[in-house]
């Protein structure tokens, strides 16, 4: 099947213009800047702290906020436009449904990336003035944050292609979000409940491979935080009394493969649903 890249570009440009102007995207970008700088100040005890320390502080918040933006951008893409009727007009043109879906993904992904790059980028430049030793790690952090967003964008677009109505796709979006938030805790609960032993601390520190692997495969938040640490060449993290060291087989390239699968598979499924759909 031939793909017309001009069509993808046209759809992407429209999505970008239509969404970048909405106020909440601007608000979230400013929240990124402020949160990062505040976090850097708090941890720096008076001055700004290093990029590494800032990122470790900020990534838990980023892993909660970024999926929200992505889901807000994505949940309504197909359902909303189908309900308003604009999708009817778009699809009456010489364009394929694949081009429409890809164009939307590229356009909304660009909105998401712009917000992340502006928000964390501006904060990063401010921190760089104090300390510029870990710029490459910070760049990797921004890229991984974008990838995390694209995962949730892809997932929410998939459900938007499948479900008939906006309220249903909004429900699915909320569902995806909560799954992302709690799956790590659920897995940890399963592990602790099924493994004999009483010292929770040492159990958490000595997670078996199956547990670590399923965390990386199923819990995007944990995978994101782990990959960000690897981006700064950290292999152990001490927080709240825990000191988790990463096993050797968890590497950044392998985690990037998991990101890609999470982005590509929902898109393929979404295309399948969209193609079958009556608009």
């Amino acid at each position, binding site marked *: 099947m031939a793909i*017309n890249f*001009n*069509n993808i570009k*046209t759809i992407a*440009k*429209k999505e970008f*213009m*239509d*969404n970048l*102007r*909405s106020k909440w995207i601007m608000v979230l970008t400013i929240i990124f800047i402020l949160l990062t700088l505040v976090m850097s100040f708090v941890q720096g005890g008076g001055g700004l702290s290093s990029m590494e320390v800032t990122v470790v502080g900020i990534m838990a918040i980023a892993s909660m906020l970024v999926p929200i933006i992505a889901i807000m951008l994505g949940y309504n893409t197909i359902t909303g436009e189908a309900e*308003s*009727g*604009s999708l*009817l*007009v*778009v*699809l*009456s*043109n*010489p*364009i*394929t449904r694949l081009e429409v879906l890809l164009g939307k993904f590229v356009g909304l992904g660009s909105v998401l990336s712009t917000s992340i790059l502006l928000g964390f980028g501006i904060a990063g430049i401010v921190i760089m003035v104090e300390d510029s030793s870990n710029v490459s790690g910070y760049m990797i952090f921004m890229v991984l944050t974008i990838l995390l967003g694209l995962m949730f964008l892809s997932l929410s677009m998939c459900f938007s292609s499948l479900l008939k109505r906006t309220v249903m796709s909004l429900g699915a979006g909320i569902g995806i979000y909560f799954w992302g938030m709690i799956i790590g805790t659920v897995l940890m609960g399963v592990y602790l409940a099924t493994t004999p032993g009483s010292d929770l601390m040492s159990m958490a520190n000595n997670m078996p491979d199956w547990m670590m692997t399923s965390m990386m495969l199923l819990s995007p938040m944990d995978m994101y935080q782990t990959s960000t640490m690897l981006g700064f060449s950290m292999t152990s993290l001490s927080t709240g009394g825990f000191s988790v060291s990463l096993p050797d087989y968890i590497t950044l390239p392998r985690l990037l493969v998991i990101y890609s699968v999470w982005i590509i598979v929902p898109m393929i499924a979404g295309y399948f649903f969209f193609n*079958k759909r*009556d*608009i």
Partner: protein
Amino acid sequence: MTEYIIQTKALEKKFKTVHAVRGVDLNVEKGDIYGFLGPNGAGKTTTIKMILDLVHPTAGEVYINGLNPSESGVLARQGIGYLPERAQFYRNLTAYQTMEFFAELKGADKAECDELLAKVGMDKWRDEKLGTFSKGMVQLVGVAQALLGNPQILILDEPTSGLDPRWARALKDIILEMNGKGTTVFFSSHLLFEVQELCKHVAILNKGEVVIEDTMHRVSEGMTGKPKLVVRIAGDSAPAVEVLKNGGFTELEIHGQVIDIFIHSEQKAQVLKLLALENIDVEDFRTEDGNLEDAFMEFIGEDSKPGGEMRGN
């Protein structure tokens, strides 16, 4: 052999709970203005969506210029202008940006964007966001985008809905102008009089089936469809007929105590006042606005709904 630009063969659509379209055959000639009539819920929109491959048929085939859109969609949809019923577009885009977006999808010259906005009187709001527009204004932008790229086929689904009467008339002129330039126009309506003065051919759809497909002339022989006021006079209707004729209302049909007066709906108060002034006792009255449901009932020989009900404008 006649060249059909749009053809459907035994087109069928079953949704989960509704059998919306039941074996529809349509034959639209090139250069025609084709009216697709039917009461609300008859399956017109679903049929149109199947023609454009927006809804996948359960059975049957569609051909646009001999191409099946579910097989070669991109080619088949080349040169089509389409306006769905009550479409909304993108709230954050301006009128011009909306036009530019569709011009790019159609590969139309962008100079047309401003020309067409001016044609539908929206040039004054060129740089305003669609989110601030009224329904009628959005509908006009919708008309303008459908005209981009001088379409070979114009498909309009209830195009006058949401338009004020002035723009509904302007739209008719636009349709005639486009048709004069060679565009085939296919439009749906539930109002007979809207179609009557424009269309060469017409199909009537009811409950998902084509009741008739023929020339407008032949179809309209079977029904009047003109707006009328129906009054029931207490007692003899002869004096009332006399009064009406003297008052200048000459297009009358008398069925015993009931008189059908063919007038524009603005005149109905005038008629009722005249009858009251002459002390003629009106037992009951209703208006019929040329709504297809009434006309259709007339066509298939059933009488329209019993009186006592005030309907229409």
